């Protein structure tokens, strides 16, 4: 387990992997909100896939950072206004090198009840995939 603190480039992008320690810390955010009965989390990890006979050992992520922040702001606002029971939306994506097995995406949505937490988390995930200007390069 990597216990070093990753470098936050801004509130959505972090340099390197999203470590278990960072995830633990992020999950304590909003712990004092006793109206949040439901927390839905999605974690995306780098898979050690085989591509044309070669094993992926890491992925290097790059982004148009200024646009990514603007788009992520838009996603958070859209989700919060589309799901009235949602209380918080958190999006974090890695930049730079993330090794196979490590996390590169963390989404957390809290809501009063399970239905909107679950649906809003999925919706956020789909919008992250569709709207954030992020690219990857497999390393072997």
């Amino acid at each position: 387990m990597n216990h070093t603190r990753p470098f936050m480039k801004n509130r959505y992008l972090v340099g390197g992997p999203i470590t278990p320690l960072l995830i633990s810390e992020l999950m304590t955010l909003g712990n004092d909100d006793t109206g949040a009965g439901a927390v839905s989390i999605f974690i995306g990890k780098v898979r050690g896939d085989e591509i044309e006979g070669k094993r992926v050992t890491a992925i290097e992520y790059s982004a148009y950072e200024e646009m990514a922040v603007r788009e992520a702001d838009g996603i958070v606002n859209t989700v919060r206004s589309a799901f009235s029971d949602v209380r918080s939306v958190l999006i974090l994506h890695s930049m730079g090198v993330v090794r196979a097995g490590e996390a590169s995406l963390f989404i957390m949505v809290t809501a009063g009840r399970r239905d909107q937490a679950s649906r809003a988390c999925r919706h956020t995930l789909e919008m992250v995939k569709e709207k954030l200007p992020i690219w990857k390069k497999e390393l072997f």
Partner: protein
Amino acid sequence: MGGLVRVLFFGAAAEAAGRTEESFTAQDTAALRRQLTEKYPALAGIPFRMALNKTLLKEESVLKINDIIAVLPPFQGG
């Protein structure tokens, strides 16, 4: 109308252009798009979109001086 704009290349577009940034002079985005694919034929193989001042273009747009155009291959986050 038209002018010197800053063009940013990302992902596979940066590899196709062999650079991450360059200046162009163009009247509008359609003209700029033609210049880009003429200068960098490899770009034609990438279904890229463009952003104007950090907003994804939904239709061709007139360009003015100091605009920032980003050349965006399909997104791959997640």
